[in-house]
């Protein structure tokens, strides 16, 4: 494990926060979508846990994370320590790893120009915030759609950043930066969400075909979604993954784990529950 310092903490809710860790030494290379194992001392031992990185690989100042403090049935040990930590506290970290990374080439070696659709449930958004900033900073010309599902409006971490990225796309034109962001709130009837006028329901319902024969996603991008024009990246609870795959299997999409003989696939996912 390497040494680092917690350089920024921001609570969005009592149980949702943004944390930054700055390595004491050399900043390692990593790929957008990877995770980092963090460690803090507890009872003379180091407690470790992996968290998806939400900052981009081009940012060499700090790793950023958006973390949910889950306390039921039991509070997570490392996450509890993190939510009690102060800016300036020391923290250890292991090198970034993980396979939920952006495909730049197809199995046949050609450039992958398919539309990128990222579906994140809760803090499953984190790798896609990294994706978005990385694709922006590297001047990528692919169309990118980020869909974020949450129960409550105050869980829409990175709404401002992602809205700014979409506004930049509108201002510059799709030929220069092609980015869309939509969020869905699954508990619209709750008082906290009373002013929400965006999409209501579970995030995977963006893929459900409505009465007009199109899904909300197809309405958004303006064409039929096929396995030849779109690759999906999904991160969240297993229920979110399963919900997405219920829609995509019907369209003959296959996951990386069940790729075809020629190596092709259209869905990469990572679940955390």
């Amino acid at each position, binding site marked *: 494990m390497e040494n680092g310092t917690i350089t920024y903490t921001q609570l969005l809710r009592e149980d949702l926060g943004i944390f930054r860790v700055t390595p004491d030494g050399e900043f390692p290379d990593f790929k957008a979508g990877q995770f980092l194992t963090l460690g803090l001392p507890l009872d003379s031992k180091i407690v470790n846990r992996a968290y998806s990185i939400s900052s981009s690989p081009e940012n060499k100042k700090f790793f950023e994370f958006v973390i949910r403090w889950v306390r039921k049935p039991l509070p997570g040990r490392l996450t509890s320590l993190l939510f009690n930590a102060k800016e300036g506290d020391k923290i250890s970290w292991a090198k970034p790893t993980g396979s939920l990374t952006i495909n730049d080439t197809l199995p046949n070696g050609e450039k992958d120009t398919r539309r990128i659709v990222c579906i994140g449930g809760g803090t499953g958004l984190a790798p896609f915030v990294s994706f978005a900033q990385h694709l922006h900073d590297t001047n990528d010309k692919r169309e990118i759609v980020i869909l974020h599902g949450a129960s409550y409006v105050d869980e829409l971490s990175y709404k401002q950043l992602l809205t700014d990225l979409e506004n930049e796309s509108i201002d510059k034109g799709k030929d220069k930066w092609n980015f869309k962001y939509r969020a869905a709130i699954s508990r619209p*009837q*709750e008082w906290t969400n009373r002013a929400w006028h965006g999409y209501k329901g579970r995030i995977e319902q963006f893929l459900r075909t409505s009465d007009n024969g199109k899904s909300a996603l197809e309405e958004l991008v303006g064409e039929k979604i096929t396995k030849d024009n779109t690759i999906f990246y999904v991160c969240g609870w297993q229920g979110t993954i399963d919900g997405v795959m219920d829609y995509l299997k019907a369209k003959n999409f296959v996951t990386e784990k069940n790729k075809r003989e020629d190596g092709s696939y259209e869905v990469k996912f990572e679940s955390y529950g």
Partner: protein
Amino acid sequence: MAEEVITQPNYERLCSNILNSDKHIRFAGFVNDKSQILHSAQQKDLDSLLTDNEIGMSIHYTLERWRKAQNFTFRLGKERLTFTEYDNVTLVTIPFKGKLLLVSTEPRIHYDPIIEKVNSILTNWEK
């Protein structure tokens, strides 16, 4: 082999029984964890102390408090009952089969007999 019969509580009947169990009870209602009121009943001829929007806010605060209280379940056990006594009303919440029973009563009365009656109704909900 006998078939298992799963019975759902009749919230309408429970609310009615609770409301009629004591004259000091103003209101009884059940909400689920999505803030949806499953059923509610209140004494006739009583003006509501809150507007509709304030009722939504009150339910939200109650559920938020209930959710947060559950963070201590692993140490303290399950929450059984809460009281909030205002000048003008007392609010009682009792978890019941994954839902929350909300009861409001007149303030500054003897609560024990009321709670006993309500708990008896809940315990015998299948009868």
